[in-house]
């Protein structure tokens, strides 16, 4: 007789727990944090770690924890702003400096990421406002947990440690940054659609006259013949979609701040068209700015909440 396999117990378990895909977790929650920590026992399962610093009194350079220490991250979160256009500033000596005007619109902290729960420290910032009728129920619950109105844009800003965390609901104002400090600016650059070789890669094109037939802006040759591999080499620059991707402008100086208007004037141009959302954060290519004590954000309450 084949062994009788009883499914009744399993079915009863399923009936009680509606989601069968919930795996049975060990009570130790620290194991769910799978990255960056060599302080947690059994962090890498039962596989042997390449560099084991558990036995050494000091942090070894090759360990993941040491790499995290070295990683260049900002100490404070960033801000989402809208690119409004460009203007200029005149210095008394007559020098004219082109600036981009960025405006903050209802920017608040919506959530916080912690190393214990998520494996890294970050602050989720939201900007704008969205009608609650047009926001999905899961997202409405997420905003309710943060104590904020539904936001149009959301972005995480990774920070170095728990001192950079901020309480959900905190409103950002333009004086979060200081005049003269340096920031990193990130935005999606202008999209140029399907662009030809001359626009996309600066190809020279062919002559306009002298017998040229229908080939003024084409690519021309795509490479060698048999001697060049009998193929078009991978990575050959060709026409294609141009723009619409994220661009970072590092180490941009803050020229002027207007708290009432909520504007930040940054030196030079900023990627993206007018009206686009831009992420601004303290630069990682330099020391963090010297913030006056009064505007320093508390980190302990945020950690306790998360």
């Amino acid at each position: 007789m084949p062994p009788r396999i009883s499914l009744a117990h399993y079915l009863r378990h399923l009936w009680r727990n509606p989601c069968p895909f919930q795996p049975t977790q060990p009570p130790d929650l620290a194991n769910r944090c799978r990255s960056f920590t060599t302080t947690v026992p059994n962090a890498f399962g039962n596989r042997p770690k390449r560099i084991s610093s558990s036995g050494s009194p000091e942090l070894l350079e090759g360990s993941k924890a040491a790499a995290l220490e070295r990683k260049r991250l900002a100490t404070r979160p960033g801000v989402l702003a809208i690119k409004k256009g460009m203007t200029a500033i005149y210095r008394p000596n007559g020098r004219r400096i082109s600036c981009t005007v960025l405006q903050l619109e209802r920017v608040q902290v919506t959530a916080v990421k912690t190393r214990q729960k998520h494996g890294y420290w970050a602050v989720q910032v939201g900007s704008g406002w969205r009608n609650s009728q047009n926001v999905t129920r899961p997202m409405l619950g997420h905003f309710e947990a943060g104590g904020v109105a539904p936001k149009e844009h959301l972005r995480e800003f990774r920070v170095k440690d728990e001192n950079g965390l901020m309480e959900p609901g905190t409103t950002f104002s333009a004086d979060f940054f200081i005049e003269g400090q340096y920031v990193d600016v990130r935005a999606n650059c202008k999209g140029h659609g399907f662009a030809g070789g001359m626009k996309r890669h600066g190809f020279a094109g062919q002559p306009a006259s002298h017998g040229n037939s229908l080939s003024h802006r084409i690519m021309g040759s795509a490479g060698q013949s048999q001697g060049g591999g009998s193929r078009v080499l991978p990575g050959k620059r060709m026409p294609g979609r141009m723009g619409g991707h994220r661009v970072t402008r590092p180490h941009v100086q803050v020229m002027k701040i207007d708290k009432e208007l909520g504007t930040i004037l940054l030196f030079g141009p900023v990627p993206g068209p007018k009206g686009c959302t831009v992420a601004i954060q303290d630069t990682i290519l330099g020391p963090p700015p010297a913030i006056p004590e009064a505007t320093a954000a508390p980190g302990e309450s945020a950690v306790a909440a998360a």
Partner: protein
Amino acid sequence: MASKPSLWPLTTLLHRRTVSTLSTATTYTPPPRIHFATRPNPTLPRRRIKVYPPPPGPLTTDPISALTTAQIKALDPSGSRAELFSRQNPQAIRPGDIVYVRRKNGEPFSGVLLNIRRRGIDTSILLRDHLTKLGVEMWLKVYSPIIDSINLVQRKEKMARRAKLYYMRKPAHDFGPVRGIVSDWVRKSYAAKKGSADKASQS
């Protein structure tokens, strides 16, 4: 011709018989349906999610106009520079007039005004002159702190029928050097200043 009697009714009897021969102890029961996302009590109403009101928005969605106004006020507090090129002012400088610009450092520049480019704080004027028989054009920012004064030397007799006088680059319409007119004006203005200073010192 009678049709062949069909065996179909009999076969249904066969089916029924096969069903009835099964014992009731092993009747087929479908497995319980598994609900993947179910609420503890579907009959109760859903939890009402609280939607917080948004914080106040920015004062204006056009900060550039506000910034420009503030910048112009700072660079031109009396408003005289703005009035020189205002469209509403009948005594304003117009394209076609001869203009003499003094700067804080460098040589003054004069010429025929070809273009007034109005862009808020970046408002600029294009002056055309002939220096040693060579046509020279220069753009000057009206609100720049490096500009000491903008003076009207000579008005065009008739109003130019265009806003941008690029036709004056052609030899047929080129005004030529303005040196003579400007030096006369400078001499007269110095004399007038000296005269008024003398009068002030006398009285």
